[in-house]
């Protein structure tokens, strides 16, 4: 759904019109506008500016308010994207245990606050239903190997794990939100096959993937991953929220574009990459990228020229800089606004197998949420596809800029104010802000 459609849908609902059918996008069931939580009792403000003592856990506290059936509001652009929640004993207890700073506010203060929001580039978004969350990871993945899993665990947000068998079985319909991290959907084991040959973790990865491919009757792992990629695209098309980081962003798109084209090295499927692969890719089947050139060398842990930084390509590797979040109009562009709520605007960059996305490889419909000014790449992008949306965030771990295999896991209790991790958690709460019809 285009941002304008979203606003149109909301506007129509304010007026009582059937916006969902007209917009042709996600079916919104907003009951009123502004959807203000009535201050039936005392209220707590969770400030998300520098005054907050644990930004990441604040998302967990808010999520659990909704999960318990309570209502919360997201105050876009107000003090770093603060939350308003009921001052019930459970919430207060949870905040105290988590070390999340909350400020009791009176009804009069809430009225003042709403007045300030109405008069500025801010908005109030009600958070109505806690999304059901799934994270796509192999069964043996350590919880500390994926920034989103770490953020969810730290914030105390429940999630389920799914992998290829569950995706192909159709289990994604149970979830509102799906996360992908550093999976290689081209089926080439992140192209570590040669450089990490003989390491136990790689051998285990190869064995597990081949076993699943065999069990599910696929000719090879690349074929399996292409089928999984198609299912994920179908999930988004039918209204799902997809959030992907690191190499999952690039390889998912390459797998979708490579229908009928061999882009996998011979160690993955027994045949070499088609030398003309780049010219044969079907970019009409992808969500975000277009016209990329596939990396043909099996020895280079690089998939294509979508990534601007090419961390494992000695001749093309780019140094890390910083990226800047775009400031959107909260009232006109609520969706990108939600995804960009943060107490910092300029954030330090961090590497991943896919670190960034070249501007000239983006489809015109893509919304850029953050970029490195002056650089030919962007960091954080978002778009609509069918009835759903996708968000891609380059890099592996916002608090481990040079992440290497075997590095110790990031301990988020040492980074409770991480702005990069906040962006991840914005994505988790974002689906709570609107409702859709059941996905097929």
């Amino acid at each position, binding site marked *: 759904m285009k941002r304008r459609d979203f606003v149109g849908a909301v506007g129509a609902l304010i007026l009582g019109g059937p916006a969902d059918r007209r917009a042709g996008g996600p079916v919104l069931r907003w009951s009123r506008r502004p959807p203000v939580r009535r201050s039936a009792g005392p209220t707590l403000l969770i400030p998300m500016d520098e005054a907050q003592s644990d930004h990441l856990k604040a998302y967990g506290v808010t999520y659990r308010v909704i999960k318990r059936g309570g209502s919360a509001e997201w105050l876009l652009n107000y003090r770093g994207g603060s939350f308003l929640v009921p001052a019930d004993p459970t919430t207060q*207890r949870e905040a105290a*245990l988590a070390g999340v700073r909350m400020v009791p506010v009176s009804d009069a203060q809430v009225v003042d606050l709403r007045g300030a929001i109405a008069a500025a580039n801010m908005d109030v978004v009600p958070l109505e239903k806690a999304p059901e969350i799934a994270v796509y990871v192999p069964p043996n993945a350590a919880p500390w190997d994926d920034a989103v899993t770490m953020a969810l665990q730290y*914030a105390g947000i429940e999630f389920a794990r799914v992998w290829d068998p569950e995706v192909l079985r159709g289990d994604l319909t149970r979830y509102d939100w799906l996360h992908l991290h550093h999976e290689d959907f081209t089926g080439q084991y992140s192209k570590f096959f040669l450089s*990490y040959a003989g390491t136990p973790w790689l051998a285990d990865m190869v064995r597990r993937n081949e076993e699943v491919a065999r069990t599910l009757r696929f000719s090879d792992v690349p074929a399996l991953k292409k089928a999984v990629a198609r299912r994920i695209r179908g999930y988004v098309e039918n209204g799902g929220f997809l959030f992907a980081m690191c190499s999952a962003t690039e390889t998912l798109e390459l797998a979708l574009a490579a229908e009928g084209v061999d882009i996998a090295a011979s160690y993955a499927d027994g045949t070499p990459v088609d030398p003309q692969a780049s010219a044969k890719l079907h970019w009409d089947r992808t969500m975000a990228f277009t016209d990329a050139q596939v990396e043909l060398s099996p*020895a280079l842990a690089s998939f294509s020229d979508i990534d601007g930084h090419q961390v494992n390509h*000695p001749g093309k590797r780019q140094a890390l800089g910083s990226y800047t979040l775009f400031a959107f109009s909260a009232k006109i562009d609520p969706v990108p606004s939600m995804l960009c709520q943060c107490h910092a605007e300029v954030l330090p960059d961090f590497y991943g197998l896919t670190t960034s996305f070249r501007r000239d490889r983006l489809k015109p419909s893509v919304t850029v949420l953050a970029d490195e000014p002056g650089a030919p790449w962007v960091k954080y992008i978002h778009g609509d596809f069918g009835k759903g949306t996708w968000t891609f965030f380059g890099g592996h771990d916002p608090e481990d800029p040079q992440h290497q295999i075997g590095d110790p896991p990031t301990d988020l*209790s040492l980074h409770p104010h991480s702005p990069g991790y906040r962006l991840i958690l914005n994505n988790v709460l974002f689906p709570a802000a609107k409702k859709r019809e059941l996905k097929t």
Partner: protein
Amino acid sequence: MLGATIALVVLATPLRAQDPAADLAAATELERQGRAQEAAERFARVLDASPAHVVALFGLERTLQASGGLERFLPYVERAIEEKPEDPGIRGLQLRALGALGRDDDVRRAVDRWIAFAPRTPDPYREWAFLIAQRGDLAGARDVLERGRAAVGGGALVPELAQISVAVGDWVEATRYWYAAAQSDTNFAPAAGMSLAQTRPEQQAGVLHILLGEFGDALARRIAADALVGWGRPGEGWTLLDANLPGSPREAEAAVRRFAERVRLLRSPEASRVRGYAFERLASLTTGASAQRARIEAARAFAAAGDRPAAERMLADIAKDPTSAPPGTAEAMAELIALLADAGRPADAERRYHEWEARLSDGAREDLRRHLAWAWARTGELDRAESAIGDDSSVVALAVKGWIALFRGELASAVELFRAAGPYAGTRDEATDRTTVAALAQRANVERAPELGTAFLSLERGDTAGAVSHFEQAAATLPADHGRSDMLAFAGRLALDTKDQRAARLFTLALASDSTGPAAPTAELGLAELAWRAGRVDEARTRLERLILGYPESALVPQARRLLDRVRGAIPNS
């Protein structure tokens, strides 16, 4: 002023003048000013007069590239080659320009012409490979180098092949190339070691296997020694190097000196000890003043590693007579005295201190007196400790005097001295220790408590078990709400940190003594840690939640939250 003068000269110099030196100076200044096109004209004029003028050629390439006219450079470089066909620099420039213009076919033709002119030189292959590698085609660059190696023969292009292998991350192949390069010219051995020092951890075993197993000669072992230093394994590196030193004493000395300097970059007791070994070996390879300097360096390195006997051994001969000892000996001796004091040998340390006192700096003397005071205090000789510190009134000395008062059980004096010492005496940890102890002493609210003094002295001596007992005994003499629970909780914390079975009992007693006082959070946290270690997750969670919610202002709340995160599985358990 000079810049302005040159600028005026540049501006005033008419273009028709034909003075290559003046043109070159003018061109350089114009380039510096960012006037690339004008600079290019001047460089071109120099080349009209001297077609193979290398400085002008490089200048012309730079300025034409900056002004977008690199195509114009090609005739100049052609003329230069006609004049000096044997100059690899000029031919390399041609390749670079053609490559920058994307004229790959012309690059190939230029390389062929160069090879035809000089078939036995590796230069054309090297330059061509470099061009290809710059574009990211490392496999292509390697192919070119291999072709060159086959055509030229010998050890040609092997170092370049090693570097390409490193760039593609193929450390096994890089090892083979580097060894071959060092075999053909031993000057490459240090470069080989430095390069292989960057090997990824998962490939280090493979590299070592090739060097020690496949090749296995002294050269390969010396390369391995260098690599091991880079991998943070200086002990193994030294073992290899020491057993495989070059036969020539001069080369052996250079190898050991280089190794010692590389190990200096590592900061660990092992690295310091290895450095000591290296300098000790150096002392045996050299004579006279050089050998003495090596012994002093070795002594300092051993002292830094905490290896007192080795440091003493190194200084044994040269420190016999302080008046004739070579420069640097006093500094090494100061480190040894500190080491002796810290090792619990205050009498030896004091004797040497008095022998060398006159040759030590004021700062070193003050520092050593504090070491001596601490050393005497630890032995329980508190009067000698006070005597050692003397009338030193620095904040560091006041802190030491505070500890001595504490060990005597004079709590009020100790608190007063700690307060006078302030927060900047010694390290941050030392200041924190003083604050903790002062707070405990104040909770006891008595002028003197000899049992507590004994407890702290036991702790200082490293007798934690004894200290726990003394603290428990001291607690029994104090009122329940004035120090007893604090001493019990403190004793419990000591017991917990040393896995002493009494920890749980002491924490429970502390809570029973005063369940709402300042020691209660310490006891709750301690009991939660014990429960967590024993796998009693629910109990740990309950205690931590009680601590966080019941004592929200306690300084232990962040620690409790962190442990609660760990208990909940929200952060890694490491």
